[in-house]
Structures are given as structure tokens and as C-alpha cells.
């Protein structure tokens, strides 16, 4: 790591604060590239062990060997935030990255989605995740690697299936149906009751057991942890640990375009305004910037995916130019990628960037479709719905403990991949320990049941 960079950190921070960024202190740490790679694989500096991370690690290694994907920084929001920088970064790269990290820190502190999730998870996700890892290590010592792995297979397979609109620490459902007569906070009922006693005198109050779940439950990790008939407490803890980490990952996932765009906008702007940076470092940093926010399509070529850095950066530039910084800050606070793209990816900008929609057939033929802004928005956002996962809810638990899962194919548009779904049911069955039935639709659109065992 190039020395000298440290001396710029303070000055960049001051400049950022003057430019209106509000962020908690960020601790910077330079780490070897190998560790950077692990952070990218695990998503957190210390995380529970699981073989699936090993698979991602191999892919990451291969990618790195092929010269793709170089990581400059990873930042963890919090108070203080923590940023890891690659030791191999040069001075210019580190200056750029510092400014970029401050953009992220501003975003994480002010964006409502981030704030809500951080209020749930606390500002110490890095420490929590390390605790989960330790807790799982203890479970391995107590119960054996195989049983722990079985629980993790199931929990991590469901990692996207959380309901972040519910609190992280969520109450169990009421066990009995609420009798409408005892709703005392209802003004009308109070006054009605005060008028005269009910005809028929004393009705026998029968407590009715509430159905389980009372409504289709999308938060599968929570539901299984709370209602699996024969799960052991350490297995429930594993499910809840994975769920907590998912709560942390959700805003990162659901505001990637905004967040990366915002950080890129700010590193570009802070670099422009930082008159204290030596000429050469400035040029190098700008070069690095243009690599980062480069569209995936170079010059005349056509790309079939979008670089979120590039898209977000272009959108923020446009918004600030058109509406001014205060309006941009308000958008940054209130939106997530869904509203951001729908509200602010305009026809002109889409044309300017050369965005298009296409249709890919399974035989590999790709056809560019007619311009349609709304449809373009949906194509950009489609992989982001529901944490990128199909909508599967727990719909019922039968008297014998059989779990019924229902896939909402009307929203998703088609049925589940049956082979994969069967495997997921197998994972889940090993912790639920009673039969599981999953309803989805087949190719023709008619209902189809998968069962385990």
C-alpha cells in the first residue's frame, strides 16, 4: 500500500463534509488481495463456514486469474464504518477509493432503507456475523459437523426468503383468534356495549385456536425457526443467524444501482474539487474512475447486461444537473432501486446511454425489442424483485406437522425449477423433520405438487 495516501484521508473527509455529505467516521484498513477476495465471497469479513462459499471462492479465484474483477474496496456501514482497501492499490486508486467510500458512508447513514435495516440489525453487523461464526463453530463442536452442515444447507438455501417489512426480532403469532368482543380500544364497540347488554345473555366464550400461519408467510427462515415441530434450539439459532445476515444484505442488494452510483458520483466530484491532489495522481485517479463507471459495452459493441456503477453514476449526474443537489439528496434518502429507476431513468437518459430491451430465446437468438420505457424499467429491475428469489410462502401446517409451501406463480409468471426445488425441499426436510409439500405450476400452468420425503 502506498504510504502518503493516509495524509489525504483527512483532507478528503473535510472536503466531503463541506460538500454536504453526512457520514459516520470510517476506519480504513489495508488488507492483502487474498483477504479482499474472501470478503467479496462471503459478503462479510468473518462469516459462518459453509461449502457453498468454497464454490464461490473457486469461481472468484478463476475470475481473478482471468483478469476480471479487481476489487479496490469493500465498505461495511456502521458507526464507525469499516472499509477494507486492497494493499495493492496505488496512491491514486486509494484517493479515489477513499472518496468513494465516503459516498457509501453518506448513503448508508441517510438512505431510509439502509437505516431501517441497520436499526434492526444494529450498526455492528461485522461483529454480529463474527459472533454467528463462533456460535456455529461451537455448534459444530457440540453436535458434529454433519448436523450443523445440514442445518446450514437448509438455512442458506432460504437466505433470500425473509420479510424485511417485519421486524428482525419478531413476535410469534397469537395462538388464539382474537374475539372481536374484547377489542376494547374500539370506540364504537365501547359505546355500543354501554348502551345495553347483548341479547341472549352470556355467550359461552370459546377460545378458537388460530390457523398456522394465520396468513401466507414469506419469512420462511423466521417461520421455520419458530414453528418447526422438532427442531433443536441450536438449529433455530442457525436459522435466525442466517436471517439476521439477510436483513443486512437486503439494502445492499435492493439499492445497488443507487448506492454504487452515488458513491461513484461523489468520488468523481470530490476528485474534481480537491485541489490538493497532485496532478499525476489526479489523472491516474480519473483514469481509474472511468474504468469503474465504464459501460460494459465498449465503443461499438453491445452488452446484454448493465454495469450498475455506470447506470447509477449517469442517473445521479443527470438528477443533480437537472434538480440540484438538495433534491438529489432527498431522492437518495427516500428511494430504493425500484423507485429510483422507475422515477428517474428517463427516456432521454435511456437513449443517451443506448439502453435497450431484448428478448433472448433459449436457442441463443437475441432480438432487440421496441423502445418502451416502462418495460425497460421492469427489465432492469426484474432480477431484483423479492431479493431475487421466487415468492414462496408457508401457507399451512397440517395437524400431523406437514408443512405446506405455496409458490406464487401468478406474480412470478412461471413455475419453479423442479429439480432445484426438490433439492431445497430435501435440505429443509432434514430440519423440519415432517413431510413438506410445495405447490407450484408446471409448464402448462396447471398446479403441481412436490413432496419431501
Amino acid at each position, binding site marked *: 500500500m502506498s504510504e502518503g495516501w493516509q495524509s489525504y484521508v483527512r483532507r478528503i473527509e473535510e472536503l466531503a463534509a463541506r460538500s454536504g455529505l453526512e457520514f459516520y467516521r470510517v476506519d480504513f484498513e489495508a488488507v492483502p488481495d487474498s483477504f479482499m477476495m*474472501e470478503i467479496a465471497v462471503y459478503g462479510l*469479513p468473518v462469516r459462518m463456514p459453509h461449502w457453498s462459499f*468454497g464454490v464461490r471462492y473457486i469461481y472468484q479465484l478463476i475470475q481473478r486469474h482471468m483478469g476480471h474483477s479487481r476489487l479496490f474496496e469493500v465498505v461495511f456501514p456502521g458507526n464507525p464504518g469499516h472499509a477494507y482497501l486492497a494493499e495493492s492499490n496505488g496512491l491514486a486508486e486509494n484517493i479515489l477509493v477513499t472518496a468513494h467510500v465516503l459516498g457509501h458512508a453518506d448513503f448508508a447513514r441517510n438512505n431510509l432503507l439502509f437505516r431501517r435495516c441497520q436499526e434492526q440489525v444494529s450498526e455492528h453487523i461485522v461483529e454480529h456475523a463474527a459472533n454467528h461464526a463462533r456460535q456455529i463453530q461451537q455448534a459444530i463442536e457440540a453436535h458434529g459437523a454433519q448436523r450443523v452442515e445440514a442445518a446450514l444447507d437448509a438455512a442458506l438455501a432460504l437466505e433470500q426468503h425473509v420479510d424485511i417489512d417485519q421486524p428482525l426480532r419478531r413476535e410469534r403469532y397469537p395462538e388464539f383468534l382474537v374475539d372481536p368482543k374484547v377489542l376494547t380500544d374500539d370506540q364504537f364497540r365501547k359505546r355500543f356495549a354501554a348502551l345495553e347488554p347483548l341479547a341472549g345473555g352470556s355467550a359461552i366464550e370459546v377460545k378458537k385456536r388460530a390457523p398456522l400461519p394465520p396468513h401466507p408467510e414469506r419469512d420462511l427462515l423466521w417461520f421455520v425457526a419458530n414453528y418447526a415441530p422438532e427442531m433443536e434450539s441450536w438449529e433455530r439459532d442457525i436459522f435466525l443467524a442466517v436471517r439476521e445476515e439477510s436483513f443486512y444484505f437486503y439494502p445492499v442488494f435492493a439499492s445497488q444501482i443507487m448506492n454504487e452510483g452515488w458513491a461513484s458520483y461523489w468520488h468523481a466530484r470530490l476528485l474534481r474539487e480537491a485541489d490538493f491532489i497532485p496532478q499525476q495522481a489526479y489523472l491516474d485517479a480519473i483514469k481509474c474512475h472511468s474504468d469503474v463507471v465504464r459501460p460494459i459495452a465498449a465503443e461499438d459493441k453491445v452488452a446484454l447486461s448493465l454495469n450498475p456503477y455506470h447506470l447509477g453514476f449517469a442517473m445521479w449526474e443527470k438528477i443533480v444537473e437537472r434538480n440540484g443537489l438538495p433534491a438529489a439528496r432527498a431522492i437518495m434518502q427516500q428511494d430504493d432501486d425500484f423507485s429510483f429507476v422507475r422515477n428517474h431513468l428517463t427516456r432521454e437518459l435511456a437513449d443517451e446511454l443506448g439502453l435497450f430491451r431484448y428478448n433472448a430465446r433459449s436457442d441463443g437468438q437475441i432480438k*432487440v425489442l421496441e*423502445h418502451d420505457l416502462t418495460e425497460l424499467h421492469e427489465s432492469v429491475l426484474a*432480477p431484483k424483485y423479492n431479493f431475487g428469489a421466487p415468492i414462496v410462502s408457508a401457507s399451512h401446517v397440517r395437524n400431523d406437522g406437514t408443512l405446506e409451501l405455496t409458490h406464487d406463480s401468478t406474480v412470478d409468471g412461471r413455475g419453479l425449477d423442479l429439480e432445484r426445488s426438490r433439492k431445497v425441499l430435501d435440505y429443509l426436510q432434514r430440519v423440519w423433520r415432517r413431510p413438506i409439500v410445495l405447490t407450484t405450476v408446471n409448464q402448462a400452468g396447471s398446479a403441481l405438487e412436490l413432496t419431501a420425503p
Partner: protein
Amino acid sequence: MDEDGGNRGELSGAAKWYELFSRGARDWLRHDEKVREAVRANLPEIIAGGDVINGGARTVRVPVRMLEHYHFRLRRPEEQQGAGQGKAKPGDVFSAPGREPGQGEKGPGGRDEGEVQLLLEFKIDDIVDWLWEAMKLPNLKARVGPSEETDWIREGWDRHGARSRLDRRRSFKELVKRRGAPGATQTFIDEDLRFRQLARRRQPALHAVVFFMLDVSGSMSDRDRKLAKTFFFWVVQGLRREYRSLETLFVAHTTEAWEFNEPDFFQVSGTGGTVASTGLAKVREIIDARYNPGRCNIYLFYASDGDNSVSDAADARSALTAIAADACFTGYVEVSSGLSRQLATETGKLFAELQAAGCAAGSYALNDFEDVWGAVRHFFTAEAQAPESP
């Protein structure tokens, strides 16, 4: 545990925890282990691949796919829409590059996974162990013949013996015991000394000789020979588990018979007809010249397409019966790729007769590489249950 986020940082001079330990590598190893378990569960199919035997190597390489950690996914659609960027007009049509469209973001468990192939190396000994477990193959009974193979083994102690067999530890113990008594001398006396004794023991003959006899006449194709080779390879592996010393002998025949060394044996190909009795006579000759059937366990495995010349039937029968009398087991595999005649051949009949006569013998029709394990299982089960040959 090693992973402790808490001690990050300020230990001056000390190596950081992440420099000492790679979680990625740990989880990768676990993945590898899982792949091995999966491979192990499907060994017979993988091993039957035929390319596993590479000239005396003690390992085989098996190509495997990376495992996928499954999530709920939508069915792959016929048509998929996505957003792209670049110079393209509505209506443009082009063909997709290798990459899947629309997978730009870092969702958990990318879809591209599963394309990388790993080459895993397995020790043949491990594979054989797993196979024996998985296929529930019985361990063979060594036919313990009367043996002159005697051995001196250590047995007990005595107060007298050659100086070289003095057991100092034992003797010292005796001294300590004796010194406990009042008025005892403090130095060694003759009564303290203990000498190791040796006894003569007869060892069962754990020695096996396996004859591999291959028909290399013109009707045996390359593929037939390769099938036979794969089969022979696993037979050797199986027998090696049972015998401390295993000798393999290779005999090939057409209308004549020759003894070969192992590398040449599998290369040899001949022309002309098939006269099995020549090969059997060669085996007999070798047994008589070099081995005492009472002292070692003799096995014969014969691979042929079964087209023995009809006029040879009587000679072959008598030669085979003579060998079977001295052998632990005689096995016949009929390699006839394409034509599954199911042992209804001249040679097939010979072995059927032998088996009917109560000899330890078995036959198996080997038509494809997938049958190799069926054949191995068949023979080893049959051998373990075979009656003691007279």
C-alpha cells in the same frame, strides 16, 4: 476459533489473523470432500469409464462438476427479457455470446456455476476399499493349505537363553521386584535374567497366483480387449486386498499360447482361430513348473468371445478340469460387445459344465463397460461362496 473479528488490528508486529488462515480455502476443501463423497456414491459408474487404468499408476483422475447449493429458482423460460446497452436498434437480431444475459448482479449463488470441471485424483486403494464397502463384496477365504512356510515367532520368556536374546527391560523388572525383599543384593544375579524365547509356527499360505488368460484371436476386437483389461485390472485390485503377495501371470492364445509380461499382454493382438486348450495347457505347464498347488492359492480368469473351435471341446474340457482341481477359483468372462449371446457359446458351455460338476467356477457375460462392476461382484460373491474345491 481462529476467526475472531474482535482481535482485528492493533497487535503490533503480530501477523493478522487473516494472513494465517483462509476461510475460502477451508470451505473449498469441504466442497472437495463433498464431491469426493458424491463420487464415492457413484463409483461403479465412474470407474467403469474404462480410462482409469493408466499403466500402473496408483491414482485415477475423475472429472467432476462443481456442486451447486440449491435455491428456489424459476424454471428457465423459453424466452427471457433483459436490458442491454450499446448500439442496437429495435429489430436487430444477433446470437448470444457464451454468457447468460441479465445476470449482472451479485445474487447469492450465480447461475453460471456448474460449468467448471474439476479433475479429482483418487487413490486406487481408496477406491477399492470404498467399492468393497459399497458393493458389499465379501472378503475372500484364503484356502489355507498345508504349508512349509514356517516362521520363528517370539513367544514367552525363560531364565536361560542366548545372550543376544536377553530382555533387559524384563530383567530389570525382576531385579526391582527382588530388591524389595529384605537383605537382597543390589546387583543383578542370574535369577533376574530373562531371555526371549522363540517358537516355530506354521503360517497359512497367504500367497496367490492369478492367471489372466486372454483370447487374442482375430475375432476379439480392440474394444473387447479393453473390456477384458478393465475387468482384469479390478480383479487384481480385489485380490490384492486379500493376499500379502500376489503374483500375476498373463497368458494369451490364439491357436497357440504364449506367456507375456503385463504391458505387452494388453497390447498383443493376433489373427486366426481360437483353440482354448492351448492356453489352458500353457497355464497347466506354468503351474507344474513353478508352483505347488498345495502351497498357494491359484486363480484363473479367462476372457474370450467364446468362439472356441468345436473340435477343441474335448481337449479344452480335460485341460480345464485339471486346472480347476488345483485352483481356488476359475472364472470366465465372455466379452462380446454388441452381441449379447449370454454365454451360449462353446467356451461358455465348458464353464457351465465345470460349475455343474461342483467346481469353484463362474461365468459372466461382459458386454459393456457398465457391466464391469457387475462382473467383479459376480465373481467375488461366487468365489466366496464356492465350495472348497476337492
